[in-house]
């Protein structure tokens, strides 16, 4: 098994955090993982993206020319990456910000108003964690407990309250799909 996912959005939306926590969670669950951020000519306020590979064997290339799944938090990222998702893969869209439709009809589109859900929870900055709840609910790539364990480990030095709000955000994203599916 080898699953590659691209996460993309504005710099500051927590796109790299999504990829890092997924990779960390998968590592804790015993998988081979690679995490590759886009680097270099990125600019503040510009777009950010990263590629995470999760596999039960050695990972040859950490690059995904045809990712199995794509998670986009803003419209430019949808335009940039939508054509690369493998047919049949999941395309997660932050529908609070992205109001246009994807041009793809051969992928499974999952719309999650993650920014609105996060705002309702009281912290709009957790929109990324809301999306991770939805992402793991659909893909089942990592068990929620493994993921939340990693999230806590990664955020370790931060305040308990921040971990708590992220736990709630994750649960909200997970449950959102439970309701809508």
């Amino acid at each position, binding site marked *: 098994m080898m699953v590659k996912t691209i996460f993309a959005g504005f710099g500051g939306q927590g796109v790299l955090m999504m990829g*890092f926590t997924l*990779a*960390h969670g998968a*590592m804790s669950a015993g998988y*081979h*993982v*690679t*995490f*590759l*951020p886009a*680097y*270099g*000519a990125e600019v503040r306020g510009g777009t950010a993206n990263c590629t995470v590979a999760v596999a039960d064997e*050695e*990972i*040859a*290339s*950490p*690059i995904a*020319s045809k990712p199995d799944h794509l998670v986009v938090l803003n419209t430019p990222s949808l335009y940039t990456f939508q054509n690369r998702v493998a047919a049949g893969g999941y395309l997660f869209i932050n529908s609070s910000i992205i109001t246009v439709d994807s041009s793809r009809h051969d992928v499974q589109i999952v719309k999650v108003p993650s920014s609105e859900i996060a705002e309702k929870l009281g912290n709009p900055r957790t929109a990324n964690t809301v999306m991770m709840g939805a992402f793991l609910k659909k893909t089942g790539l990592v068990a929620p407990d493994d993921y939340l364990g990693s999230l806590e480990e990664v955020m370790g030095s931060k305040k308990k309250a921040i971990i708590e709000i992220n736990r709630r955000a994750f649960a909200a994203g997970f449950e959102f799909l439970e309701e809508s599916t």
Partner: protein
Amino acid sequence: MNKVLMQGNKVIGEAAILAGCRFYAGYPITPQNEIPEYMSERLRQVEGGVFIQSESEIAAIHMVVGASAAGARAMTSSSSPGISLKQEGISSLAACQLPAVIVNMMRGGPGLGNISPAQGDYFQATRGGGHGDYRVIVLGPATAQELADLTMDAFDLADAYRTPVMILADGMMGQMMEPVVFKEPKPRVYPERHMMRGAGTGKHKIIRGLILDPLEMEEHNWTLERKYRVIAQQETRHELYRAEDAELILVAYGTGARIAKGAIKRLREMGIKAGLFRPITLWPFPTAELRELAKRNKDFMVFELSTGQVVEDVRLALQGYARIGFHGRPGGVVPTPAELANVIIRQYDPKQGIAEHQ
């Protein structure tokens, strides 16, 4: 120790600290900036640690020359154009027989090039790089784990042979995060040290690269050469992957070797028995080990992220005893394993062998 998920550049930094590196000087350049960033923080935390962001790459390497002469485990890092600037100092380190570790996170070149992963600095690294008759030990890691292990080894090799050692990787290795376990470094004890500890600390020592007498200079060159022969005999490393029953042997290192492994998996699914010969030491190149393979394998395929550099060492090793095919993607393009597999299917016929690279 625990498994951690860490970016390649930072892995090098942590491994260096664990190996006892206490001096770092460098000048920023993408894609290796996380090395100085990490060292600036960690060297502050350890006793005797010194971090200097120098005014230039040339200054940084010469600070390393000085720190090494004074007995510190010293390191500098840069990316392709910055490494070109450091060559004068690397030549000095070799001439003065001073240990040091130099990291090159290669990018696409020549010139300023770009910041994408490439392997175009192979010639520069393995042929010495600067002026004069000398060699640099060159290590080519292919995983984050190897970045950790080989960085630790690099300091030991540098001290054991009193010679500069280069870690040759690329932007992808530097930027990628992978799980890594830091091994407990095995401190080596050296019977004889050549440190300058200041006045009143024992017999005077002279460290110099300027030797005006031609006969003396010649003898110095032969002294270095004898040392390089010992290194070539004792320190050559390589990895074989699925080579036991292979009919076609791919030769690739670093990032290229990762892609090759992915291609081999695909080729085997299609019934082509392919395996990999991965040089881990790029200098000394595992010439004898590769030649040994040619006793039973007649088809080799070199893959590199450059236009044809490793392939020359493979030719020298195989000396016409086998057919050699080639695929290269320079400039910062990282092809997929699928692309490499397709290229090989076009070039390789199990009955006729590989189409030879001219």
